C-alpha cells in the first residue's frame, strides 16, 4: 500500500473527453428589460399601467420632489445644518418605482438611499432630515400617513435582508397578502447576510422582493470589482430564486418588474430578485469625494442617462406634460421642501436623558441611577 499517491500522481494528465459521462442537470438565464430608450421613446408596446397618465405623472412628480429634497439636504449639510447625507441623485427612477409599486400594507426594508421610496410611503421629509441631522426621532415615522411597520434605514450593509425574511415569514404564517420589499445596493450583494436571506426566503417560499439597486459603486468600489458575476441578478440562482435585470433609469421598467414580482409574491409564488441598473451621480455621501476614484467622463456619460429627463421626455411625447406643468411642479415641490426644512429646524431639542427612554419598554431598576446621574450632570452644567 502506497503512502502518498499524491506525489506520484501530480504529473499525470486527467481525462478531457467528458461528453459521454456528463449530462446537463440545470439551466438558467438572466434577462434584461427596458421599455423606454434614452430619449424616452417606447422600445415596444408598453405595459397597460404605462397608459395611465395619472400614474405616470405621479411617478414623475415624486422623482422631481426627491431631486429637490436631495439637493436641499446636501445644501443643508454644506452649511452645517445637517450631518452626513447620502444623495440619491440619478437613482430616482428606481426608488420612486419601488415605493410606488408597493401596496400600503407591504413593508419596506431599505438602505440610506431610498429617500424617494420612503417619501412616497408616507415618511415625512422633516423626519428624514431629523435622522440625518442626528436625531433618532427621524425614524419614529410619526406622521399621519406613516408606514408604521416599515423598517428604519439600515446602515450596516445588507443586515436588513434577513429581517425581510422574518417579516415575510410573519405575513405567511398569518396568511396576510403582504410583501416584504428589501432594497440593497450592489455592494451589499457581497455580504453573506444577503445570501443567507435569499436562501431562507426561497426555502420557505416567502413573499419577499429583493431589489438590488446597482448604482455602479460601493463608495469607491466599481461594480466589476465587487463580484466576478456577470450580473448581480444571477445571485438569485444560488438560492433557487428567479432573478432579472432591468434598466434602473427607466421608471416604467422598474415599476413593471416590481409589480410582477409583488403580484407573484402576494399570490404565494415566493421571492424574486430584481437588479436595477442605475448610476450614483453624486458622491457616496457628503463626506465623500468621488473624484478620488472615478473620472468626470464616466459621470458625464451616465448623467446623460438621467432618469428624470427620460421620463419627462416620454411624458411630453405622450402629451401628458408641459413646460407650464413643470414650472408649477417645481414651485410646489420647492415650497414643500422649504416647509419641511423649516419644521426640521424648528424641532425642539430632546432632553439628553431621553437617550434612556426607549432602550427597553421600561427602564430597568438597575439603570435608573444612570439616567438620574445624566440629568444631574446636565443640571449642574446648565447651572454653571
Amino acid at each position: 500500500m502506497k503512502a502518498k499517491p499524491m506525489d506520484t500522481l501530480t504529473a499525470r494528465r486527467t481525462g478531457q473527453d467528458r461528453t459521454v459521462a456528463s449530462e446537463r442537470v440545470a439551466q438558467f438565464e438572466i434577462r434584461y428589460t427596458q421599455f423606454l430608450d434614452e430619449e424616452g421613446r417606447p422600445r415596444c408596446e408598453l405595459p397597460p399601467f404605462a397608459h395611465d397618465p395619472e400614474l405616470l405623472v405621479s411617478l414623475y412628480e415624486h422623482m422631481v420632489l426627491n431631486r429637490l429634497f436631495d439637493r436641499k439636504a446636501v445644501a443643508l449639510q454644506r452649511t452645517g445644518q445637517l450631518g452626513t447625507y447620502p444623495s440619491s441623485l440619478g437613482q430616482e427612477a428606481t426608488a420612486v418605482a419601488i415605493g410606488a409599486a408597493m401596496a400600503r400594507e407591504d413593508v419596506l426594508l431599505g438602505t440610506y438611499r431610498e429617500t424617494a421610496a420612503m417619501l412616497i410611503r408616507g415618511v415625512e421629509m422633516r423626519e428624514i432630515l431629523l435622522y440625518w441631522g442626528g436625531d433618532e426621532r427621524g425614524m419614529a415615522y410619526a406622521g399621519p400617513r406613516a408606514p408604521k411597520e416599515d423598517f428604519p434605514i439600515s446602515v450596516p450593509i445588507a443586515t436588513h435582508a434577513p429581517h425581510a425574511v422574518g417579516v415575510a415569514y410573519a405575513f405567511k404564517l398569518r396568511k396576510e397578502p403582504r410583501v416584504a420589499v428589501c432594497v440593497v445596493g450592489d455592494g451589499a450583494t457581497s455580504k453573506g447576510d444577503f445570501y443567507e436571506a435569499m436562501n431562507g426566503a426561497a426555502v420557505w417560499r416567502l413573499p419577499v422582493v429583493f431589489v438590488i439597486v446597482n448604482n455602479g459603486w460601493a463608495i469607491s468600489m466599481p461594480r466589476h470589482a465587487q463580484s466576478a458575476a456577470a450580473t448581480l441578478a444571477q445571485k438569485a440562482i444560488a438560492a433557487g430564486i428567479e432573478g432579472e435585470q432591468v434598466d434602473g433609469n427607466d421608471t416604467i421598467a422598474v415599476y413593471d418588474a416590481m409589480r410582477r414580482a409583488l403580484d407573484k409574491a402576494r399570490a404565494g409564488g415566493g421571492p424574486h430578485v430584481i437588479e436595477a441598473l442605475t448610476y450614483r451621480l453624486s458622491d457616496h455621501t457628503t463626506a465623500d469625494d468621488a473624484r478620488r476614484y472615478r473620472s468626470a467622463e464616466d459621470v458625464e456619460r451616465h448623467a446623460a442617462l438621467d432618469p428624470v429627463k427620460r421620463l419627462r421626455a416620454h411624458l411630453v411625447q405622450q402629451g401628458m406634460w408641459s413646460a407650464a406643468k413643470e414650472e408649477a411642479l417645481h414651485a410646489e415641490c420647492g415650497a414643500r421642501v422649504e416647509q419641511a426644512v423649516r419644521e426640521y429646524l424648528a424641532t425642539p431639542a430632546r432632553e439628553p436623558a431621553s437617550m434612556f427612554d426607549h432602550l427597553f419598554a421600561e427602564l430597568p431598576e438597575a439603570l435608573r441611577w444612570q439616567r438620574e446621574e445624566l440629568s444631574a450632570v446636565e443640571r449642574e452644567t446648565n447651572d454653571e
Partner: protein
Amino acid sequence: MNDTAEITLVEAVNRALAHELAADPSVVVLGEDVGVCGGVFRATAGLLERFGPERVIDTPLSEVLIAGMSVGLAAQGMRPVAEIQFMGFIYPALDQLLNHASRLRNRTRGRLSCPMVVRAPMGAGIHAPEHHSESTETLFAHIPGLRVVIPSSPARAYGLLLAAIRDPDPVVFLEPTRIYRLVKEAVPDTGEALPLDVCFVLRSGSDVTLVSWGAALRETLAAADALAAEGVSAEVIDVATLAPLDMTTILESVAKTGRCVIVHEAARHVGVGAEIAARLADEGLLTLFAPVKRVTGYDTVVPLAKLEQHYMPSTERILRAARATLEAA
C-alpha cells in the same frame, strides 16, 4: 409529561417552550435541527409534532439568518425563540443582536420593538468537541438593550425562560450544558414566570458572599457546604440575569458579610465577574473586610476534553479564594 415527576433542566426548557407555544399564538421556535430532530439536546423534542412545522421551524444552517429573521418576526409582533445550536456558533449572530435586536426600539423611538429570545447551550464539562464549550456571556452582557439570563436549575430554567419569552425586549438565554441533565426537580407546569433582573439568594450566610451563575453554582454550593463544615457561613447568590445586573442584592449581602468571592466559568479578563467586583470597589468599598476574589476560567482558550476540568473553577479553587478572604480579615 407528568407534571409532578422530577425533570431535568433541559426538560424544563422544553416544558416552558411548550407552555408558551400553547399559550401564545405569536410564539414560534426556530433554529437548526429544532423541528424533526427535536434539538441536538432534545430541548425542542415533541414541539414540532404538537405545534406544526410553521411554528417550530427547522432553518437552514445560517446563524445570521436565524438571528436576523427573528428580528423581522419580532418587529411584526411575533415572539420568536431562536435556538443557536452551541454558543460557539452564536458569533455570526452577534451583529444582528448588537446592531439591530438591542436597538430596534431605541432607534425607532418605540415604534418597532424586538421581543425575541435567543437560546444557546453554553459552557464546558461535557467532553464535547472543539468550539462546544464556550462561556462568552460578557459579549452579550456588554451590549446595552439586551438582557442576558443564565438559569442554574430546572425550576429557574422554566420560570426564567417563560419570563424571557414574555419580556417585551430581546433576551439572550444561555443554558449550561453541564447541568442540562445533572439534577432533577419537580417543575409544575404552572405557567408562572420568575422575575428577570434580580439575583436569587440560594443560601444565606453571614461570613462570606459567594456570587455565581449557571453551572459554576454547583461547585460554589459545594464550596459553601465545605465551608459550613469548617464553621464558615457562606451566602450563595445566583446572579441569573447578568444584564441588567441586580447589584442591590449583592451589595446588601456583602454589607453583611464583608467578603466576596465571584465564581464564573468564563475567562477572567473582563468577565462579568469584573463588573460585580468593580461595583463592590465603588459602592461597596466601605463594607469590604477583604479583597474581592474572582475564581474563573483562565484567560486562555478553553481546552479540549482532556484538560477542560483544569480550566473550570473547581470547588478547591473556590475554597482557596474564600479562605483567602477570611484570612485577610
